């Protein structure tokens, strides 16, 4: 394998700096001791992190986001695990069409989904409710939950299952004691990736959230619309920290390269 020349390495360095600069700037400005947007040149301060406490809307939105992400990812898995087992193990008519349908939320613009759900839940009398948010998020995180569970179920060694069957295990016992433990890394990673997607979604949620059910990205977006001050950077820094924790969890259980490499080929 030939090495990269100096020109290539210069390009690479500039590329990486540009990719990281906006994220680093947000995290750095969050530590500013000043009352306005500036880099913390006169020492670091947690002042703007403490300021979040005086802004209950952000705290409330954080809990909404956390609950929404955890619950909708869990519900998505309840639907996705059986579907993944069926798609991984059986060759049946309509299998490809079903798989395409289950992955379709990746391809439908989130603004269109937001509008469709707003219309649907408003006419169902659920407009602005937390239940509506859960159902909508289940749909958008479903492809991520399905994809990782599917990968685990496809790669699973089925002889262990057969051994269990020969020893008299069947039905629910077989699933709970043998199949589920074997696909668990995929299921947990599916949950984590689904959680991140739900936790970060703005485009669809901004249509559905009402005061009281605003998620953190929605609250941040509405706040930025009015003014940009260091408060929103400290909130962003917290969001980045939470996403990073979920990423580390993903990396531990599954390997981040596998998760991300699977993201590109969405069947488009």
């Amino acid at each position, binding site marked *: 394998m*030939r090495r990269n020349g100096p020109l290539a390495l210069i390009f690479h360095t500039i590329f990486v700096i540009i*990719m990281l600069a906006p994220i680093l700037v947000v995290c750095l400005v969050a530590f500013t001791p000043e009352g306005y947007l500036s880099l913390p040149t006169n020492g670091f301060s947690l002042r703007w992190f403490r300021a979040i406490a005086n802004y209950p809307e952000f705290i409330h939105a954080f809990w909404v986001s956390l609950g929404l992400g955890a619950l909708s990812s869990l519900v998505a898995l309840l639907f996705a695990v059986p579907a993944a087992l069926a798609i991984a193990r059986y060759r049946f008519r309509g299998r490809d069409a079903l798989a395409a*349908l289950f992955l379709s939320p990746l391809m439908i613009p*989130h603004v269109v989904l937001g*509008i469709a759900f707003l219309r649907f839940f408003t006419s169902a009398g659920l407009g602005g409710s937390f239940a509506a948010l859960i159902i909508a998020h289940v*749909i958008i995180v479903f492809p991520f939950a399905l994809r990782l569970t599917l990968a685990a179920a496809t790669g699973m060694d089925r002889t262990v299952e057969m051994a269990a069957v020969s020893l008299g295990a069947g039905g629910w016992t077989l699933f709970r004691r043998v199949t589920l433990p074997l696909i668990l890394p995929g299921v947990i990673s599916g949950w984590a990736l689904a959680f991140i997607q739900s936790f970060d979604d703005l485009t669809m949620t901004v249509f559905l959230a009402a005061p009281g059910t605003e998620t953190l990205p929605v609250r941040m977006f509405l706040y930025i619309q009015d003014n*940009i001050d260091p408060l929103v950077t400290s909130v962003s820094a917290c969001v*980045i920290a939470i996403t990073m924790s979920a990423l580390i969890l993903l990396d531990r259980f599954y390997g981040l390269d596998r998760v991300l490499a699977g993201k590109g080929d969405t069947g488009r």
Partner: protein
Amino acid sequence: MSGVAEERGARAPWALTAPALMLFVGVLLIPLAMTVMLSFHDWGQYKGIEPVFILKNWYEIAADPYYAEMFWRTFRIAILTTLLTALLGAPEAYILNRMSGRWKSFFLLVILGPLLISVVARTLGWALLFGGNNGLVNKLLMSLGVMRSPIPFMFTETGMVVALAHVMMPFMVLSVWAALQRLDPQIENAAMSLGAGPVTIIRRIIMPQIMPGVLSGAIIVFSLSASAFATPAIIGGRRLKVAATLAYDEFLNTLNWPLGAAVATLLLFALVLIVVGSNALIERRYAEVFR
């Protein structure tokens, strides 16, 4: 045994997928169908939404040049974003692929990781760097006396393209990187042994082979950019509207839902046509790669 297995085999997959299928029909297909229907309804300031079947909204979009201009802006931004990500992302993927193991996986994580970080936070970063007189880069350059007035970034199409390209870049790198994995490194050595220079190798050996990766990355970036909301809304504000931000305004500010639904439906069908069409073209052109 075979009889039982076949019978189970015929019913089991449907039993297992039935809950998810019902969920998708109930809360995805029906709401989408309702949105298409909504675009044919009437709306008035005082009467609200009237469930009739008329072409008023579609006629308004076709007749008012405002919408043509807005859609043209949306697709122009998406095309420029796609070009920018391809021009920078493809070489970067190539350089990444030539790094040694540990550095390769480290930088791959550095570049792909932002994919999972909040779009609001990433766009906010650009606003902090270039946002008017308070933008950090602007302040620095102005205090150094390099320029008198801030770089126009906020509320400009250039700003939207740059910030969007940053948000979408991981998709392009990922796609080209995947194409590079299929490439046999020996071909490069073979070309070199036959006397080809670096430029010739890149132009005649590498480029043709990663082109499918660049194109499939381009489709992803284009369709995500054309329907992006957060970045255009934060950088473009209320002045520079694209399809997604216009639909948002119609729904949550003007409250003209049928018109907003028509804009969204048009965006959805335009994107489906473009994506499916270019996918078919690419697969026909590069049939041998997708064997």
